[in-house]
């Protein structure tokens, strides 16, 4: 069915960002279920629980206490159950090296935290849409790289 619920996870230590993300995702017309985590460790603990429905997309902030986004990314890519997860990096950093490094480490999407709510919505929407396209239209997911 085309319009099934998308499960989304976000790990971000910033409460405001989590809030804004939640609000943004509620306003876009894609049906979603969002789980929020305060840091990488919480996220990883959740993802590795048995018998959970894995999210379609995981949004990762890079700068997080306890376990940062890059560590989570490597763990996900090296985990048998999780390695096919779609990972979107959601970070303030606009450094080319950071971006390249995350892609090389297996990230699919890189979203520069935008400075307006409108662009945040757009970015999330595009990420979800493209993911959905890749998901439904036999596009090669190995090569799914998107920078927003």
């Amino acid at each position, binding site marked *: *069915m085309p*319009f*099934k619920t998308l499960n989304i996870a976000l790990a971000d230590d910033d409460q405001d960002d989590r809030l804004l993300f939640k609000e943004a995702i509620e306003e876009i017309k894609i*049906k979603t279920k969002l789980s929020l985590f305060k840091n990488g460790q919480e996220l990883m603990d959740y993802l590795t629980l048995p018998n959970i429905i894995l999210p379609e997309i995981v949004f990762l902030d890079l700068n997080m206490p306890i376990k940062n986004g890059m560590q989570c990314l490597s763990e996900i890519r090296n985990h048998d159950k999780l390695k096919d997860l779609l990972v979107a990096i959601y970070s303030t950093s606009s450094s080319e090296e950071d971006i390249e490094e995350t892609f*090389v480490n297996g990230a699919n999407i890189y979203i520069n935290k935008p400075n307006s709510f409108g662009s945040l919505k757009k970015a999330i929407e595009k990420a979800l849409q493209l993911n959905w*396209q890749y998901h439904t239209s036999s596009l090669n997911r190995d*090569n799914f*790289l998107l920078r927003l």
Partner: protein
Amino acid sequence: MRVYVKFDFNKTCKTVLREQLDTLGIEYVIHGVGEVEFERPPTLLEMQKMANNLDRYGIEIMDDQQIALVQRIKDAISEWVHEEENPKKYNFSTYLSEKLDYSYTYLSSLFSETTYSSIENFIILKKIDYVKSLIINSEHTLTEIAYKLNYSSVAHLSAQFKKTTGLTPSSFQKIIQKRKERALMQ
């Protein structure tokens, strides 16, 4: 005097939908905007009635046939993009309407309604996906790829690539190359 209203489109739709569905007397769940799940399949009569009621609000029930047609459109696009010597003398809209025997306008609106994308966007997505595979798997230069996929110039290809993926073709290639090297090292 002028009064400004602000309304939640989503909420409006859902409210209307709920009202109409309630009249049927079948248990249901609304998934997001576009999907309704019934507890039992409604009869043909019930479906007819529901369609009529919803039609007034500009809400249409989609059927399996339409979904199948969308898939055929996707297949046609895929074919069009991958065809080595595709009939590019006429444009895609003609190609598609001839192939599927529907007007392009209909197909286009159906596609946009069902997927989150327009046919044009989907073609670009497909093309870029093909470009990616060519960049990765073959020794083609960008010039060759641009020619192969009927881009007017490398610049055009690069621009579309960048617009679609947010990356330049060369940085995309660099990333994939580095990924491969890393995989080899492990």
